[in-house]
């Protein structure tokens, strides 16, 4: 595995530890989807696909695709035993009503107040928010999974987001290739760092002030 992929796996493995047995989880497309592959042995989680079911399973095998069963990205997937199909109004009632225990999404920017920007870059990328605004506003726990810095090496964890917000003050955890950070009323708390970095390096790569937890963990 190349070093970048190893870092991604480390991130998603750490996130997967957060879910208690039986949790209902909604994973965003891309990196967050990988979390499903690393659920610890002995635990079972139920995944929601916001286009209309619980019990989202792995991608459909070639030749086994069912055009009636696709994920939120339109890709053919499977439904596991114990799953259930429903319409969009029900699906978003589940989301907005606080019945989803965890959602994991990517981020362009997150700030010290738990604001998240991840759905558009004005003038450049305007795909629409899809279900992200409902998920971030409604899920009990919001986890942002992203690279700690952007392509140019600039911090993505800011004092204040500059891009249009997906939701205000809803982020609970930020997990990056370098750090595990909890959003609290008193600001951002660095609880864990990746095994190949240092607190100094994390602070340097973060624009927002970080409080370092008394008992710092590693992942």
């Amino acid at each position, binding site marked *: 595995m190349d070093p970048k992929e190893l870092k991604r796996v480390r991130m998603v493995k750490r996130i997967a530890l957060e879910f208690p047995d039986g949790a209902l989880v909604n994973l965003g497309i891309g990196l967050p989807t990988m979390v499903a592959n690393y659920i610890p042995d002995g635990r079972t989680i139920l995944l929601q696909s916001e286009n209309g079911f619980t019990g989202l399973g792995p991608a459909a095998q070639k030749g086994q695709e069912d055009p009636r069963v696709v994920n939120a990205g339109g890709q053919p997937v499977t*439904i596991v035993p114990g799953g259930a199909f429903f319409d*969009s109004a029900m699906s978003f009632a589940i989301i907005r009503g606080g019945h989803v225990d965890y959602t994991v999404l990517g981020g362009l920017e997150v700030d010290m107040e738990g604001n998240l920007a991840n759905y558009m870059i004005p003038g450049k990328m305007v*795909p*629409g928010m899809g279900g992200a605004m409902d998920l971030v506003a409604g899920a009990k726990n919001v986890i942002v999974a992203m690279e700690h810095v952007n392509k140019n090496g600039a911090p993505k964890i800011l004092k204040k987001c500059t891009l249009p917000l997906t939701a205000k003050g809803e982020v609970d955890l930020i997990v990056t290739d370098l750090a595990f950070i909890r959003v609290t009323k008193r600001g951002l708390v660095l609880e864990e760092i990746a095994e190949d970095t240092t607190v100094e390096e994390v602070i340097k790569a973060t624009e927002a002030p970080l409080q370092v937890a008394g008992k710092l963990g590693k992942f």
Partner: protein
Amino acid sequence: MKPILTAEKAVENIKDGSSLMVSGFMGCGNAFTLVDALINKGSKDLTLITSDTSFPEVGVGRLVCQCRVKQLYASHIGTNPVSGQKMNCGEMAVTLVPQGTFAERIRAKGAGLGGVLTPTGIGTAVEEGKQKLNLNGKDFLLELPLGADFAFVKAEVADKYGNAFLPGATKNMAVVMAMAADYVILEAEKIVEPGELDPDKVTIPGIFISAIVKSTLPASNLQLKP
């Protein structure tokens, strides 16, 4: 019993400038036969209300690519790059609506509600121009009902009363859209006699349906996808 029409006949009354809801999610559950008939008819200047603009060559995505849409209401347009181009150059007015709000606005129209109060979009660009209410210490946006002149919904099986079974993830927006348009055209892969569809298997009650059309195009979007 509902009239069973050809696709051409069913879309006859859709005028240039009409508003149209099309259910489906990334093509999954789009009424391909009805969309095709509308394209062949040459309809244009439509107000299209759909959860996403699918892929360029799939279902509802074709309406956008062939410049038939003047105003679009959708939650996601990222999988069809043509949508973004037309939005940026001003050829098509686009209103992006959070997906859950989109479903509830349509449901509100069909359910006779004056609007819905949602926490989604608070503190974002979505709240611009909308009434905000603080209830029990929490902020909500007032989102207004969304209806249309016509709706296309797609079923696997329909009986001649319009009762429809929509399997798997094809239900998506169809249930609420069937309630919220003046004239609802149901495309079905199979049309059966009353009594042949178990009333317990009905996803959309036939009372909402205006006319039924039998599918002539395959339901799968998968082999068409770029």
